[in-house]
Every structure is written in C-alpha cells, then in structure tokens.
C-alpha cells in the first residue's frame, strides 16, 4: 500500500508538472524525411513566327505542332529563291525544372519522309538553340523574368541541321551548370532559303531542291531531358 501511495504521488507530481505553464520537458523525437530523387522535367510551349527576327517572347502564335505549310520558292520581292522554303518558323520554349539534378536537354530527329520512299535533305530543317534572360516564367510565377543576362550559366548548344541522322543522334540544346538552376530555353526550327548572296542560314544547310518529289512530309522532333 505504501508503494502504491508513492507511485500515485509521483504520478500526480508528474501530471502537475506537465500542466504547469513555463515548465518545459524535452524529448528527442526521431524524425526523418526522404527527399525523392525526381527526374528533371520540362514544360514545353511552341510559338509560330512569320517575320524574320520576330521575338517569340512577346509575339507569335501559340501552337501545338510545327506546320510549315505552305512551302514557297518565291522571295518577298518576287525573285525565285531556287529552293523550297517556308516563311514560317517555330520557337519551342523549354521550361526546365531540375529538382536538384544537373540536367541536359537534347533535340533529335530521324528525318522527314512522305511515306513513298522520299526524304527531305538532311540539312533542310534548321535548329538553333537560344537563351534570353528576359524570358518569363509561366503559371503562378507569370510575371518574373529569369535574369537579365543573355549568357546562360550552363552550356548552350550550337546551330545546325535539326535532322540528326537517326533518333539516337542528338543536338544539344543545353547542359546545366553544377547548381542546376531552372532555365527557359529556346529551340528554333526553320526551313529557310539561303541567305542573301548564297550564304548558309545555318551550318551544313542543304535546302529542299525544287525537284524534290511532291507530297506531304512528316517527321518527329524529340526533346530529351535527362539527369547528368
């Protein structure tokens, strides 16, 4: 009975102490959290552009595909370009989210065929990666630009043909820096004529010749994002 009374007394003291304001007890509570290793991801938006040098950040028509129709061989002044080309071109905006992973973004394209055994020349579709610091985030953060520097912290790819000779050969769009900051990237796709004086519009350009068999040519550009 005496033991019971002592136990009861201790329990009451314990309850009283707990209920006292200002009397604190501390205990280590094991807490753990695992941050998921989620893959880097992208959000994609395409703008159709029609004027040379047009800024897709402030103009252009949002679309979900790149339809270059109609092709023409006549330049604005009426002269013959000597090749088929499109006055439309497209900017693919790539909004990256790294989730803490260094990442790379690539473009690949196996080519364009009309289903009748004819293909476009490998250098007919141009690819130009780009980056503008003033490009703005979309969604909740709609009004904030990424920064004021047009030189991104990672490595931007180089212009060339979009057709890479096979789905597993790639053109680099961007490789992130070690800090893996999120970026808004641009990738332009075009079917241009030669520049004035016959200069190439992009390295290794081979425009569509006028004797290209007619028909509808379709291909797929694949954007790949991967952790380093």
């Amino acid at each position, binding site marked *: 009975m005496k033991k019971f009374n002592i136990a009861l007394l201790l329990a009451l003291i314990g309850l009283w102490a707990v209920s006292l304001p200002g009397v604190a007890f501390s205990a280590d509570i094991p807490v753990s959290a695992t941050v*998921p*290793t*989620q*893959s*880097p*991801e*992208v*959000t*994609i*938006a*395409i*703008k159709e552009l029609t004027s040379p040098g047009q800024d897709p950040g*402030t103009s252009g028509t*949002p*679309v*979900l*595909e*790149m*339809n*270059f*129709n*109609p*092709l023409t061989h006549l330049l604005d002044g009426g002269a013959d370009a000597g090749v088929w080309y*499109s006055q439309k071109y*497209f900017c*693919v*905006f790539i*909004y990256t989210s790294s989730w803490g*992973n*260094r990442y*790379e973004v690539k473009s690949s*394209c196996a080519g*364009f065929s009309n*289903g009748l055994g004819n293909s*476009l020349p490998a250098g007919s*579709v141009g690819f130009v990666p780009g980056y503008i610091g003033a490009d*703005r985030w*979309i*969604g909740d953060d*709609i*009004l904030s630009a990424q920064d004021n520097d047009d030189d991104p912290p990672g490595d931007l790819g180089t212009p060339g043909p979009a057709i890479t000779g096979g789905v*597993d050969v*790639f053109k*680099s769009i961007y*490789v992130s820096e070690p800090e893996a900051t999120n970026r808004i990237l641009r990738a332009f*796709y075009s079917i241009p004529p030669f520049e004035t004086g016959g200069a190439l519009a992009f390295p290794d350009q081979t425009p569509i010749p006028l004797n290209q068999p007619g*028909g*509808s*040519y*379709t*291909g*797929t*550009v*694949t*954007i*790949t*994002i*991967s*952790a*380093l």
Partner: protein
Amino acid sequence: MKISYHDFWRQRAELAFIAFMLFGLLISVSCQAADVVQVQPAKTRLIIAPGDSRAGTIIVSNPEKEAKNVKAYLEDWKYLPPYDGTKDFKPASTTELSATNWISFVPSEFTIPAYGTQTINYRIKVPPDASGGHYAVLFFENYLGEQTQSTEGVRINLAVRVAALFYIEPKGTINRKVQIDDLKFERRNNKDYITANFINAGNVDYTVKSNFFIIDKQGMVYARGDFNDVYTFPQDVAVLKSSWKENVPRGKYDLVLTMDIGTALKEADLGEIPVITKEAQIEIGEDGGIIRIGELK
C-alpha cells in the same frame, strides 16, 4: 506639360487595354504550354548478385489537367567526351555495357489521367556470368498535341521524353581502379593551370569529384582548387582541369590530389568508398613551369 482631364482618362484606358492584352497573351501562352510527365526516381543504382533478380517500381506522374498517353521503352546509354555527364543514347542492346536485356517492365503503353500517376513495375535479372557495371535508360515519351500526317508540305510532330537511368552492379564482380597520368602545369596570362588525365581502369562507372593542393615542406599551402566533375564508364579517359591565380614561387613542393569516386554510391545510399589520395613531388621554376614532376603515389 499639362494633360486635360479627358486625355488623362484616355491614357489610363489605353494603358489598361495594353495591360489586358499583354495579360491575355501571357495567359494564352500558359494555356498552350504542356508539362511532360514526371518520373521518380531519376536514377536507380542497384547491386545484385549474378543469377539473382530484383523487382522495383518507378512512379510516373501527370501534372496536367489533361490525360496523357505515354509510351515507355528501354535504350542504352553511355557518357560522351569530355565526360562532363552528357550522354549518348543508343538503341537497346547495341552497346557493350548494355543492361536492357536484363530489364523487363510493365506496362509499356498507358494513359495517365489528369493529375494521376502510373506505377511501372520492373524486374532486373542479372545473368549468372555477368561481370562489371551495366547500364540502361527507361524513357517515358509523350507527344505534344495529336500526332498527325501532313496533307501537304512539311509538318513536325513534337515528342518529349524523360529519362529514368539504370546503373546495375553485379555483386562481387566490381573492380574499382583508377589511373592518373599526363600531369601538366602551365602558366598563361599570369594564371596557373593544372591538368591531368583521369583513366577509369576499373569495370564500373565513376562520378568523380576531386581537388588538389600544393604545399611546401613546412605544410604551407600555396595553391588549392577543385577539378571539374567527371563521369566515366570503364576505359574512358577524362581530363581533370583546374586553375589558380596566386602564382606559386620557385621551389620544391608536394602536390596532393584527392579523388572521391564514390559519389554515385553515396547518392544511392549503397555505401562509401575511401577517398583516393595521390601525392607527387614537384619543382616549380621561375616562370611557373614545372621543372620536375615526381611519380604520383
């Protein structure tokens, strides 16, 4: 300049209209933007005994309000020079260290409802005679918009794919070995540069973080720096590069290289590997050039 009451409100109305149009433009862009699927985890590194198998899952999420049709498929991958982590993706089972034949998964085509997830169940069966690291990537691909055929001219469909990388180490067969050679110093524009070849002489991939310091006999540090991170497969040779501004005066020093080749294992919570330390005696001349480099030990 005075502005009339009428002009003031007309300007306000014009500004409001421009702001409304700009907002509308931005909204229209955001409406046309499409998120691709999210994949978790981005990397899967497993140690499995030859002859054994292991099952696991990958979660694919759709962050959008529209359902997504997703196609999953395996390919090979390897690191590209200059071994900064960029990868070359190859058709399945076409590279020497391919693990694509070891991996099976379901489902390979599926539709994820709006804001939904899809669990991919995979099984990796390591052949009894497997040796050394093997690699694969599971891509999750979906198209932006509908895939359509052009009626005339040229049309491009846009596909976007996200990679889930596999690194598989057959247990008991891994040999981790590195070599460092072609150590060079150079002084250009009053700045000192150090380079060395990092050779992956083992049979598994390394993600390498490394640094160096130059000390004299009294332990005084004259230069230190981090090398670029390198990512290598077996037999790859990457160049470690670093630089520092304060010129090291003429004299004899010890060069200490420290390399952590266990970064990837640590990230995967698969244990740690002791950091590799190599030392060499060096003698620096008046012009910052190396007069003598001893053997790296």
